[in-house]
């Protein structure tokens, strides 16, 4: 197990290096300069300011300098926010994004699993249709539409939760719900399909024949086997949430990182582009790793370590 994890961590470093390299050169193809007043300055004036930030060096030299700093853990200084360190900006802004992301993931998958389970147990019954309908709705309504409706009715009309802004746990409720809808729908659908399949398999019939009661079968044998495909989609789902937060963060005025990522590209804020890309990449790889480890926990057949 330890060996496997070490190996994966080595891959992680290599992947990060490749991503940093590709992003750096791709980024240099962006049109324009990081100057915010480029339309007001003559070309000579622009050149002087760019030189101050080392942007007049040939791209390979810039790349080398960047990588040297990166290895030392220095992500540089933002262009749009003068003198502010990229690391500080990311750390400042990542908290709210992670918080609503995790909350949505947990709420979404747990509720979704329950919903799927109920559907499967009461297959073709009223509850099944009800929860399938909910799942289809959740998957087809874009989260920003749902967020808008939630904000207006629950926030403005009912006044149950703050309309927007950030500060207390109440502020996280509506962004979390809006973001949880999609994973909820996916989890419900997967859970239902898998449960139905599992419940029809021979070993379930055997268990039933041995006298295990219905709920015992469902929870002890059924759920666990149905979880495997669900875990597979959890990874991409978590990544989807990272991009989904962007829209939700804007609607509920959450001071998260999602918006910063897009804005840095539009303003050619090179250090922030690099910083956020690397951060998201790192996060992605980490999630994939965690998912792989989870497989082993859930299904002994895909246990990864050889000698265990």
């Amino acid at each position, binding site marked *: 197990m330890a060996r496997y994890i070490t190996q994966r961590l080595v891959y992680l470093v290599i992947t990060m290096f490749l991503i940093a390299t590709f992003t750096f050169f791709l980024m240099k193809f962006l*049109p324009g300069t990081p100057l915010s007043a480029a339309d007001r300055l003559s070309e000579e004036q622009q050149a002087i300011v760019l030189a101050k930030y080392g942007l007049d060096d040939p791209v390979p030299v810039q790349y080398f300098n960047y990588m040297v700093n990166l290895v030392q853990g220095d992500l540089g200084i933002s262009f749009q926010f*003068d003198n502010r360190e990229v690391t500080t900006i990311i750390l400042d802004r990542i908290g709210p994004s992670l918080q609503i992301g995790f909350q949505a993931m947990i709420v979404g998958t747990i509720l979704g699993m329950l919903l799927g389970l109920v559907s499967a147990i009461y297959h073709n019954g009223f509850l099944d249709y009800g929860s399938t309908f909910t799942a289809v709705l959740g998957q087809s309504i874009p989260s920003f539409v749902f967020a808008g409706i939630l904000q207006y009715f629950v926030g403005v009309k009912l006044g149950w939760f703050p309309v927007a802004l950030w500060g207390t746990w109440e502020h996280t409720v509506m962004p979390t719900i809006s973001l949880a809808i999609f994973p909820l729908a996916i989890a419900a659908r997967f859970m239902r399909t898998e449960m139905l399949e599992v419940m029809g398999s021979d070993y379930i019939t055997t268990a039933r024949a041995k006298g295990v009661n219905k709920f015992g079968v469902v929870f002890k044998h059924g759920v666990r086997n149905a979880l495997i495909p669900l875990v597979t989609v959890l990874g991409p789902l978590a990544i989807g949430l990272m991009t989904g937060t962007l829209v939700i963060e804007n609607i509920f*005025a959450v001071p998260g990182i999602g918006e910063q990522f897009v804005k840095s590209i539009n303003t050619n804020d090179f250090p922030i582009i690099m910083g956020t890309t690397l951060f998201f990449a790192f996060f992605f790889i980490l999630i994939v790793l965690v998912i792989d480890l989870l497989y082993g926990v859930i299904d002994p057949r895909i246990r990864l370590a050889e000698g265990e």
Partner: protein
Amino acid sequence: MKKANWLLLVLVLALSMFLAACSGGDDSDTGSDGGDDGGDGGEESSGDSEQVLNLMESAEIPTMDASMATDAVAFQWLGSTTDGLYRLGLDAQPEPAIAEDHEVSEDGLNWTFNLREDATWSNGDPVTANDFVYAWQRAVDPDTGSEYGPYMLGGVIDNATEIADGETPVEELGVEATDDYTLEVTLEKPTPYFESMTAFGTFLPLNQAFVEEAGEDYALEADTLLSNGPFMFTEWNQGEGWTLEKNEDYWDADNVQLEQINVSVVKETSSGVNLYNSGEVDRTGLTAEFVDEYRSSEEFRVEEEPTLFYLKMNQENEILSNVNARKAIQMVIDRQSMVDTILNNGSVPGVGDIPHNFTSHPETEEDFREINGDLVETNKEEAQELWSTAKEELGIEEAEIGYLGGDTETSKNLDAYLKAQLEELEGLTVNVQAVPFQERLDRDTAMDYDLQNSGWGPDYIDPNTFLNMWVTDGANNKTGYSSEEYDSLIEEANDELALEPVERYENFLEAEKILIQDDAVIAPLYQRATAYLWSSSVKDVGVNPMGADFNYKYAYKE
């Protein structure tokens, strides 16, 4: 074995929950004391009846360092916390701030400002002439990396350009403190609008000792900021918002009634409207789709800005080199229905190269726009005739031109509308290219476009800020336009006539006619306005044509 695995699964889930919780706590200590914060929120909103203004901005403050500021948000809050030599009053005209008055030498080159002796920084230091010398030198010092420093000071303050180019030491800048409260400024050439410039962000003073002590941390947090103006920062959370409180030590504190201004960063207009309707903020901007819903509301207000949008026409293009073709383009566009249906936010049709209500005649006080009137009109038939003439002169039947537009939702709608309008000209095909702002700038610099949807906002209150850019080889001309007559009018206005306000103004009036009417260099589109909902209890917020958009110094709540 089985049990152990389940345990691990639970553990991982628990860990992720823990992560979620601690990341929240990390950021703004919300996780742990959520209940308390709730109480705070209540206090804030109940404080509405007191002098507390709750506002929103659509973007964070990129910097509060006056030398580095380049955008509207930064200038807004610099202007609310810092007084320059002059500041813009409720009538948007310069009024004395740190300077009590000034004298100008006969040649218009030497300005002597007499500073008030009762102005202090929020750390107790007096505001002295040296604070201006330091700030202005810092702004043009190439080591600072300022963009607006060389732009605003260059060509105005003596030696600014040479210093910014690294040819001359900063000490040579034409600004000197003769004593603590006398500031001597030497200009490069007579600049009649210099007084209004001193209210602009780049010209604000800096406390040298404080800035140097804070070093790289200067202006990054509320406590590495200093104020000498009506308000001071007490809290600043990146991405979330900031709080300003009245500066009790402000020299004019008696005239400041607001006790507190809370600003939240809210990017979505719909969220802003919802916050406004739930009473949490006192003002929200409205985009076109909301205007119809609120137009009849008493709280609906439109603020006109002196920002102009127009089509730039690249005269290196064969078709656009023909003046009749350019006139046809000017004339075929129906601007009224464009501002009514596409923009729908109070913007008005553009009819020249100087906005409405921007400058007035030094003697008659008549608005520039009133005097020159509408220099373009919509006349589809005449446009077709001019277009036919142009086609004949060029010897073509059909024409195809590119159109460089923006990639935002509004600009896409606008560009689609303009394409349809332009294609009413027989045989004309317009190819719209929607590109990001940065790319548009690049292609403007390279003159790699035919038609371009472009805009300009003023840097000081004088027609020169709009008209100066179209002189031959002007850095922002980029249309290939070159007219000796136009050049000499502008040059004269900035040189021989600099001290003759009336003749100078006549020159600008004349120049605009040549630019728009005779030579049809650009096709004016619209003058921008923004629609707002303003809580009716808020009074006396000044609206400025440049620098800080709003002046909260005299504002109060009923």
